[in-house]
């Protein structure tokens, strides 16, 4: 039985690693933006470098992307174009499908975060205590879980052709408005207000708290908010999936 989960995850990883759209969008956006904003920009007035601060936020952005693309686009395409039916007619345990998508999100999330850390440490002079590096890495990668639920909800509702566009229009603005591209304090007040309603903002704040960077509100509230988003979207996905079983066919 465990072999099924292992095989499903292994094949899903191979499948996604060979899918250029996925590996490109997962790696390019966060690494490129980090190089532009975290490494190429001059230090802020007062000498504070952004390279360490932005490791937390672009790490969050990278994990969010790896997860939203794997679940959102992946599920929408497989559900909408008949592949999920083939799987559902087979003896595959349904949970194996989700476990495999989660394995891809966690693996690619971990790779993005590790690459960002290496860039920051080598070229950006980012320094932290070993325990801080480890904790930040773990928290960032674990962020794949609530975002996996959001992705699954998108994948369960969106059509196969519109899903990639929908994921992009959610992912990129959510990164910017959640303060993951440039520090939230640089955004206009009205956008800072909007940020509170975005899971990306809460994820970024948790990561920043580990660095000891200035954050807004308590960490516990951010954790609760992120868990809340995860649960609500898991529920949405559940309802959408059960309604999906009764579609019209010829």
């Amino acid at each position, binding site marked *: 039985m465990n*072999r*099924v989960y292992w*095989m*499903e995850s292994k*094949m899903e990883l*191979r*499948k*996604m690693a*060979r*899918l250029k759209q996925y590996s490109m969008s997962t790696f390019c956006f966060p690494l490129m933006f980090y190089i532009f904003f975290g490494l190429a920009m001059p230090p802020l007035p007062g000498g504070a470098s952004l390279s360490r601060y932005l490791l937390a936020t672009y790490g969050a952005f990278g994990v969010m992307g790896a997860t939203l693309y794997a679940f959102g686009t992946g599920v929408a*395409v*497989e559900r909408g*174009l*008949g*592949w999920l*039916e*083939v799987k*559902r*007619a*087979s*003896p*595959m345990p349904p949970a194996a499908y989700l476990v495999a998508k989660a394995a891809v999100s966690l693996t690619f999330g971990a790779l993005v975060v590790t690459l960002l850390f290496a860039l920051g440490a080598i070229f950006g002079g980012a320094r932290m205590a070993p325990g801080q590096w480890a904790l930040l890495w773990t928290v960032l990668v674990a962020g794949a879980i609530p975002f996996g639920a959001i992705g699954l909800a998108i994948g369960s509702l969106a059509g*196969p052709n519109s899903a990639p566009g929908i994921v992009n229009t959610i992912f990129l603005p959510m990164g910017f408005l959640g303060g993951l591209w440039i520090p939230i304090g640089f955004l206009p007040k009205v956008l800072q207000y909007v940020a509170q309603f975005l899971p990306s903002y809460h994820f970024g704040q948790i990561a920043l708290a580990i660095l000891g960077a200035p954050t807004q509100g308590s960490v516990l509230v951010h954790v609760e908010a992120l868990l809340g988003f995860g649960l609500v979207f898991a529920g949405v996905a559940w309802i959408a999936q059960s309604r999906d*079983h*009764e*579609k*019209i*066919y*010829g």
Partner: protein
Amino acid sequence: MPVAELRGVTKRYGEVQALRGIDLSIERGELLALLGPNGAGKTTAVRILLGLAEPTSGEATVFGHHPASQEAKVRRGALLQVAKVPETLKVREHIELFSSYYEKPLPIAETIAAAGLGGIENRLFGALSGGQRQRVLFALAICGNPDLLFLDEPTVGLDVESRRTLWAHIRAFVKRGGSVLLTTHYLEEADALAHRVAVIGRGRIAAEGTPAEIKAQTGTSVLEDAFLALTHENGNAAEEVLR
């Protein structure tokens, strides 16, 4: 005991009555072809027998179990109409993955041979031709060494040569003792492969028997004429009922 059975099955999707009371059984070792025009309810009947849809009324069983049960799933295989199969897995990887779902699958090499995939097993699915793609789907249907196979329009869109190749592999499966439910709207396909034919029109079984019996019943020498006579007649009958 039949290997799969529909008893008094109806299926309604909102306003659409897809099946209006179907009795159908597939016996051990036979290939039953379910014939009908598009929208007649063929795919709905298959979806119910695969546990992908629940009947509105009536009962469906596969090996005496509910079609969605694990007991039913491990003893059957299915080739469904699918618009997009993941293209970045190799043929062999697709087969290895599906084989892992079953307790006693065929050896991978045997599945590859039985679906005529020798020589292309290391190609990515996305690099295959239409006929090769259908043979991979056939391989995924038989890799678990099932007793019963569902083939939903397996040769649609294939050229003559690919169609004949797939037919040969289907015949070989039946020869090894397997049972098959095949849906098709190619009458030639039913004539060539089926032991028994059930003609379905507007959600009802219009006729059932060997291809020869069906032809005799309608006084035609070609199954296509019999088919047109039956589905047309049935259509008129349905219209009368509606009036």
